[in-house]
């Protein structure tokens, strides 16, 4: 392997979805990329001092400010007359994106900066021990939303980050999944070809936090999409332009793979609520494949 953009030897857990996602993103964007990273698992496992996995210029400053740091990098590249040849990526976890980094991210969007923001959505603050975030799904068991007699896990639904990004009127917003690597890379390539702020949110299973076997990472990611719980959607200039069509499978298929939902399996009431979330997505984004659309793989 000659020029690796994300080298092995990083200390991500076995089967980590985020390490896979990060490599797919940087390979799609290419060597002429500068990355600013929020604090989180990815930052920690890819840059264990004095080592680094990165084959591109990469900077970490704080938990919440990758979008602000990337904004400065973009401004400097414009000053140097080099912006047209260099992609700037700001990236972070779901906590760093939807909660603590939202202000910096909103500013980056609002200023119209030519940056791709990538959110690796493992649906909790994994690096500090699986605390719930604004992107933790309904009823998930985390250390700060424990399932028990008072609740059956996280009491709130996921924050609608793609819609929040769209509300800024930015040119490109998409969701992706490590269960569909080619689709993910196509979206990154498209995003970096568009001028202005872009947002891609990638579903990245976490074997430790979601409590599934490392070998199931791809399967868990795929099943989330196929159940309608993680719709793969694509917006240009806030208009929905494509979705991945599915033949919806029952949400239990997804829930039963993971320990974080284990408490639900004998609780049809709660499963019904989660099925309603999936049904809502299926209707809202028109996800269901029709008989005239046979070839699922070309849909997205």
């Amino acid at each position, binding site marked *: 392997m000659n020029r690796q953009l994300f*080298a092995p*030897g990083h200390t*991500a857990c076995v*089967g980590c979805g985020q390490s896979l996602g990060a490599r797919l993103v940087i390979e799609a964007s290419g060597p002429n990329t500068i990355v600013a990273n929020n604090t989180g698992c990815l930052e920690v496992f890819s*840059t264990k*001092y*004095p080592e680094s996995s*990165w084959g591109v210029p990469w900077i970490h400053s704080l938990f919440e400010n990758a979008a602000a740091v990337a904004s400065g990098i973009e401004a400097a590249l414009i000053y140097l007359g080099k912006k047209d040849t260099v992609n700037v990526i700001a990236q972070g976890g779901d906590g760093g994106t939807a909660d603590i980094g939202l202000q910096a991210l909103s500013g980056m969007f609002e200023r119209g900066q030519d940056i791709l923001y990538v959110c690796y959505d493992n649906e909790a603050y994994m690096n500090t021990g699986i605390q719930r975030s604004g992107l933790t799904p309904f009823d998930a068991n985390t250390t700060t939303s424990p399932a028990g007699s008072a609740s059956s896990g996280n009491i709130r639904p996921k924050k609608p980050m793609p819609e929040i990004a769209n509300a800024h009127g930015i040119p490109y917003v998409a969701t992706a999944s490590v269960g569909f690597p080619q689709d993910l890379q196509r979206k990154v390539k498209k995003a970096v070809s568009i001028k202005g702020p872009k947002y891609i949110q990638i579903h990245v299973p976490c074997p430790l936090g979601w409590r599934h076997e490392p070998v199931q990472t*791809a399967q868990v990611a795929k099943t989330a999409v196929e159940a309608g719980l993680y719709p793969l959607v694509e917006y240009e200039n806030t208009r929905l332009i494509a979705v991945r069509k599915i033949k919806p499978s029952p949400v239990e298929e997804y829930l039963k793979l993971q320990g974080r939902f284990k408490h639900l399996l004998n609780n049809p009431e709660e499963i019904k609520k989660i099925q309603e979330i999936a049904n809502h997505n299926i209707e809202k984004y028109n996800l269901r494949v029709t008989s005239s659309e046979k070839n699922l793989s070309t849909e997205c």
Partner: protein
Amino acid sequence: MFGPLNVKPGTSRNNKTGSWRTELRPKFLQKDCIACKMCALTCPEDCIEGAQKNTFYCDYEFCKGCGLCAFICPKADITMIEEELKE
């Protein structure tokens, strides 16, 4: 006050994560491979290489034994074998 801390690109290669494997490791059978590259594409370690059919292999210095390559292979041309067993 310390920093900025600067390090060289790709130096994580000093860290041989292959020692993490405890139970299983992938065996690339190199019989029915169609060179779809899905194994290389889904390897979280980026330690699988190959170009033509039946040429793919992984670098055991770094493979953590997650098994995603064997799971994803559409031809079942990668199997997970016990770590102690030689080929």
